[in-house]
């Protein structure tokens, strides 16, 4: 173990600021995740469409979202777009958007995998009892796909949570930003970064455990 005379007082003195920062990080990640979940489904459906009019743009979007590093998306949305006078965003909005857009590509893939994991027989028998395609999707296919999608989606949330820590680079006053400020002022980077790291790890571990629990709860009646 590393023992360097760990100074707890720096942490307890700045406890509130750090926790506020942590809440902010989780908030941004949660909103970004929500955006990804909402955008992902139409993207996945368009990506599966037979019509090139829907498929090609969706595939491009997914490739873009998955191929460009998050940090570049953040810089692009925060600095580049503002410079061109397209729009100018607060760090918070830029953070949510960049996490949501990046996440949407991953989420679309998650939906796609989950949808194709539903056996063809389910589509057939839904059609055979006279359900329209839309109803069949809504009441038969989607509920089954969602159950398969939940564990990887929770992993995506963990990934976005980790991504959210990057937002301190554009000055979002999250935990690392706070930690950095205090660390610089009090020359205690080790304590502060350790504390911040432990907090984030705790949150991600809780999220990962939650993923396991949610998975068990939702798999009721479905075991393949």
């Amino acid at each position, binding site marked *: 173990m590393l023992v360097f005379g760990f100074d707890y007082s720096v942490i307890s003195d700045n406890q509130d600021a750090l926790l506020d920062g942590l809440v902010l990080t989780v908030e941004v990640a949660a909103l970004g995740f929500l955006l990804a979940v909402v955008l992902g489904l139409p993207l996945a459906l368009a990506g599966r469409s037979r019509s090139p009019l829907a498929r090609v743009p969706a595939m491009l979007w997914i490739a873009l979202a998955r191929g460009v590093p998050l940090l570049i998306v953040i810089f692009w949305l925060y600095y580049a777009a503002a410079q061109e006078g397209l729009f100018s965003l607060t760090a918070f909005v830029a953070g949510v958007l960049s996490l949501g857009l990046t996440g949407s590509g991953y989420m679309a893939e998650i939906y796609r995998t989950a949808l194709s994991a539903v056996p063809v027989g389910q589509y057939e028998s839904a059609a055979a009892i006279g359900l329209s395609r839309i109803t069949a999707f809504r009441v038969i296919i989607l509920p089954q796909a969602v159950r398969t999608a939940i564990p990887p989606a929770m992993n995506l949330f963990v990934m976005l949570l980790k991504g959210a820590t990057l937002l301190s680079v554009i000055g979002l006053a999250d935990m690392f930003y706070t930690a950095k400020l205090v660390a610089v002022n009090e020359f205690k980077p*080790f304590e502060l970064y350790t504390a911040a790291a432990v907090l*984030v790890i705790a949150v991600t571990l809780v999220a990962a455990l939650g993923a396991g629990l949610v998975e068990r709860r939702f798999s009721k009646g479905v075991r393949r």
Partner: protein
Amino acid sequence: MTGAFAALDFGPVWEMRSELLKGIWTMVLISVVSFALAIVGGLILAGMRQSKSRPIAWAGFLLIQVLRGIALYVLLLWMFFGLASAGGFQFEPIPAGILALSLLNSAYLAEIFRAGYEAVPPGQKEAALAVGLPRRTWFARIHLPQVTQITLPAMGNVFVDNIKDTSILSVIGVTELLRESQRWAQFYQLPFEFYTAAAVIYLAIVTLVTFGWRRLERRAGRHLDTTRQVRRSRALIFGIGARSETATAP
């Protein structure tokens, strides 16, 4: 809006191409080295989890869980700024980056290796031993090729994520592609042009690697038929690309 775009000036991006190319080169170097190290680390961690000694198996499980929970950015700051001030040893940016990347990715790879190892049907082993192959031959000639074929797609995803994650090393001053772009974006006051260029370059590299990796997968699987069983285990590993498996206790 169109007026704004009319003012785009990609000239400086082109002028700085050799600098950007240097950044790309650094990125490639770091990606490849850290991925190779991550494979080694992944094998060790996977071996720990499979160990018959319970403490070692639990240690492996715990390590994998914790590493999967750590954000690269957090680890970098901690190693580069935190440890330095506390312990007095100062990392060089590039080794620090490589170490952090390979450490984190080894946890993902360990899970992939484990899933792949378990995805090969037990009948394969029984059949091999039944025809009198020694265990070593079974492992090298029967088991490993199948495990490789099952795990390759997921490994590809980790590799791609690894390439993308090198951009985060810019925060500790590794002059890879993003850092170069950032530098010149500030110098020329042209963030839009330089960041767009960086995004396009990343996208191109990722696309190239993805296609290259597919070829590799096909080569590795050229004698093995992609049966339903194999495909299902792939889907299992896929999820959100590589980083999907929820680890379970040993």
